[in-house]
């Protein structure tokens, strides 16, 4: 840093890596949204789809109606939550594969609909010129609050119930855990977080397209959670941090980014079922 003051260096650093720093925060939120469902022993593969709904809702509300950002943000979280209710309603009563299947299918159908509904979504070209209203501090404040929230919930009675469900659903049910409420609650909260992340992405990249929220993104989000593990809420965030910054540091890996994300899942499930950060939350006895 010859001749530069700390402040100048920081400005320079932020300018160079602005996109990456935004992405790290948003991916952290997405990893938490995955964590939230997995913490009750369910598997939703619709996090990317929920993110897309949030992104398109947010972008359209800003571009077409000119609503203020403080109103756009919660509405973008609400829209995917409604979709989560429609899909979660029937599937959460059935065995886990039904939720997983219908949420992957959701991502695929939305991708095609975004492309076809050109009059609304700009079709394959997507939406551009979205004002950059998602400031860095806002993204990281939300991420911080989300980690804090999950930490507090995890240490409480609710967290104990969630862990019991993850270990053995039938036993948890017998012990008096209200399974349907917990599962639906987790899915809705996770959809809201993903929707927030989508809205933040739209308002920081200023562009969104139909292929950003499809299958690749869905699997990538799962790889964040599986690399970190779901023992504590900070673990999936670290997983997201590593997998997002790795291809930036090792440029030759860029082309193989998705191959690596896919393989991480394979290796994690087969050999590291608790992730690389296996610690669990401590709880007052």
């Amino acid at each position, binding site marked *: 840093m010859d001749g530069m003051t700390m402040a100048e260096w920081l400005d320079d650093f932020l300018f160079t890596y602005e996109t990456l720093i935004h992405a790290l925060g948003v991916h952290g939120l997405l990893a938490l949204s995955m964590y939230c469902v997995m913490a009750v022993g369910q*598997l939703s*593969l619709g996090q990317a789809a929920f993110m897309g709904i949030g992104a398109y809702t947010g972008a359209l509300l800003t571009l077409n109606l000119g609503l203020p950002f403080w109103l756009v943000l919660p509405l973008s979280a609400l829209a995917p939550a409604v979709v989560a209710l*429609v*899909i979660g*309603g*029937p*599937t*959460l*009563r*059935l*065995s*886990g*594969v*039904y939720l*997983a*299947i*219908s949420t*992957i*299918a*959701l991502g*695929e*159908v939305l991708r*095609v*609909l975004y492309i*076809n*509904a050109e009059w609304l979504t700009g079709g394959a070209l997507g939406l551009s010129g979205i004002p950059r209203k998602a400031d860095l501090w806002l993204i990281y404040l939300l991420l911080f609050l989300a980690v804090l929230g999950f930490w507090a919930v995890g240490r409480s009675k609710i967290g104990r119930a969630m862990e019991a469900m993850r270990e053995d*659903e039938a036993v948890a049910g017998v012990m008096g855990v209200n*399974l349907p409420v917990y599962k639906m609650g987790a899915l809705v909260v996770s959809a809201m977080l993903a929707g927030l992340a989508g809205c933040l992405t739209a308002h920081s990249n200023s562009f969104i397209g139909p292929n950003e929220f499809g*299958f*690749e993104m869905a*699997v990538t989000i*799962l*790889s964040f959670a*599986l690399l970190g593990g779901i023992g504590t809420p900070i673990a999936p965030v670290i997983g997201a941090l590593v997998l997002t910054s790795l291809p930036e540091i090792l440029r030759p890996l860029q*082309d*193989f980014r*998705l*191959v*690596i*994300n*896919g*393989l*991480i*899942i*394979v290796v*994690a*499930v*087969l050999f590291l*079922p608790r992730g690389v950060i296996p610690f669990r939350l401590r709880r007052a006895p």
Partner: protein
Amino acid sequence: MLSQQLVNGLVLGSTYALFALGFTLIFGVLRVINLTYGFYFTIGAFVALTVAREFGANIWVALPVGALSAGVVAVVADWVLLTRLRRAKAGELSSLMVTLGAVLALYSLMAVFIGTDIQRFPFGFVDNTAIEFGSIRISLVQMLIVGTTFVLVAVLFLLLQRTKLGLMIRALAENEDAARLMGINVGLTVAAVSFLSGTLGGAAGVLIGLNFNAIQPFMGEHMMLRGFAVIIIGGLGDIRGALIAGVLLGVLEVLTAGYISSNAKEAVAFTILVLTLWFRPVGLFGRAQAKRA
């Protein structure tokens, strides 16, 4: 007009049925939602494309070569990814996640080396003529698609109901431990099921690649939406249900495109999928064990 659309719907539907058949067979016997299935579809189409281009093979060579190669890939993929989990009797979500990660890695690897541009079969690979029955036009490709589907389904049913291998497969579907105690070679039967379903998926890939004449690494992933819808509407693991649901979906899609809009067509599969889950999660014939949690 309507009769022509019904014919087109039947053709489309039989490709869906063929595709979903292998997918539901895996679940019915091995109790695994194997997401690498979409890749078998892609690989079938690409192998057929390659032999057609490089060796000038016609459809009667390219179709079986593509389908059987996909079968081999399926056996290898199942062995590499799922043996360990099967031995540990891991939950169904573990195997779903492993195959999900693997299939993204496979598609992406293919995209890195082959690219994602749409590729086509060489000109004149199949005869483009159509036969007219009164007001209905049926192309030779369409007849080939329906005919092949019919033959493959018939062979599968005969194999499952009339041969010793079929008996082994049905026993495995019933109960793995009991099958092993009866002296059934479980590993071999698992490989046979993978091979059969991979072959069906690969054949569907060749036929659908032919129907739309557009081949691309992620084509299998895009097909999975229909696959999911069909196997859930038909009932998870229910072969007959998948056949009927596949044809039904094809017809409904064509009718929706014809009478409502082609955008709405894309939403048909997902809409019926969600409606089925709400109102009849056991599938059309109620034979799926939609385990209540």
